[in-house]
């Protein structure tokens, strides 16, 4: 049992952090929403009403979509783009999806390789891109959720000001939708750029996200 916990410590730790912070977000968001409701002379919501409202959903979804977009673009970009010296990058010259011999697919698969990496045709192509497909699908679905919840929230606000409601298409062209979207995207791209560039010269001993402390600055990911 202790070994099982240790072997999954990374995913378990982030699961606990996620659950604690989303619950904390719900209480902070409830307090903020109730302040706004009081300013407009509306009754306060309780916690269950808040977490089953589009107010809560739009705030969660706008962050989810940007995280999945970050991973989607990072995975996609690191196939074709490199940064010499970064452990996050393939070495220059190794751009592209790589040959079967390197990827251990088809005839080059190990005896215990995943079954679909040994298969040919569509199954190998699908499995070869499954991480990118998952991140891309989760990005699109969470962006859709943001837009659906966002239009409900925007229309509640417009009703308070005596304005006509927007339909979904009008909302996805609105400044509110793009402000929520772009403020999250810019921070994700900042984080990726900083991580890729800082890791050329900076180290964290023991972290899988860093080159070994003594690795030369010019060494990229697979060379470290």
């Amino acid at each position: 049992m202790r070994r099982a916990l240790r072997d999954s410590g990374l995913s378990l730790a982030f699961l606990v952090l996620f659950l604690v912070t989303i619950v904390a977000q719900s209480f902070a968001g409830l307090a903020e929403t109730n302040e706004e409701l009081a300013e407009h002379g509306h009754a306060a919501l309780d916690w269950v009403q808040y977490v089953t409202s589009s107010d809560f959903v739009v705030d969660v979804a706008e962050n989810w979509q940007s995280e999945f977009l970050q991973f989607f673009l990072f995975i996609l970009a690191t196939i074709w783009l490199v940064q010499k010296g970064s452990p996050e990058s393939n070495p220059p010259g190794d751009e592209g999806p790589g040959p079967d011999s390197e990827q251990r697919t088809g005839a080059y698969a190990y005896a215990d390789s995943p079954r679909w990496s040994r298969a040919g045709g569509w199954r190998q192509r699908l499995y070869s891109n499954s991480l990118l497909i998952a991140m891309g699908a989760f990005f699109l679905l969470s962006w859709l959720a943001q837009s659906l919840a966002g239009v409900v929230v925007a229309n509640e606000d417009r009703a308070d000001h005596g304005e006509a409601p927007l339909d979904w298409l009008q909302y996805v062209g609105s400044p509110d939708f793009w402000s929520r979207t772009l403020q999250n995207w810019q921070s994700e791209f900042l984080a990726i750029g900083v991580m890729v560039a800082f890791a050329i010269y900076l180290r964290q001993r023991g972290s899988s996200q860093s080159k070994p402390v003594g690795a030369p600055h010019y060494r990229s990911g697979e060379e470290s």
Partner: protein
Amino acid sequence: MEDGTRSQAEREDLVGMRLAFWTWMALVVVGLAYMIALPLSGR
């Protein structure tokens, strides 16, 4: 004996890895389904 111990450890590894993968997959899928269905219900 040693083979038995190893296969027991491998089985535990498999359970741990599957649990980690499917826990996160379920969390994301359920979360997305909730976040899409809720605004569609007009709340």
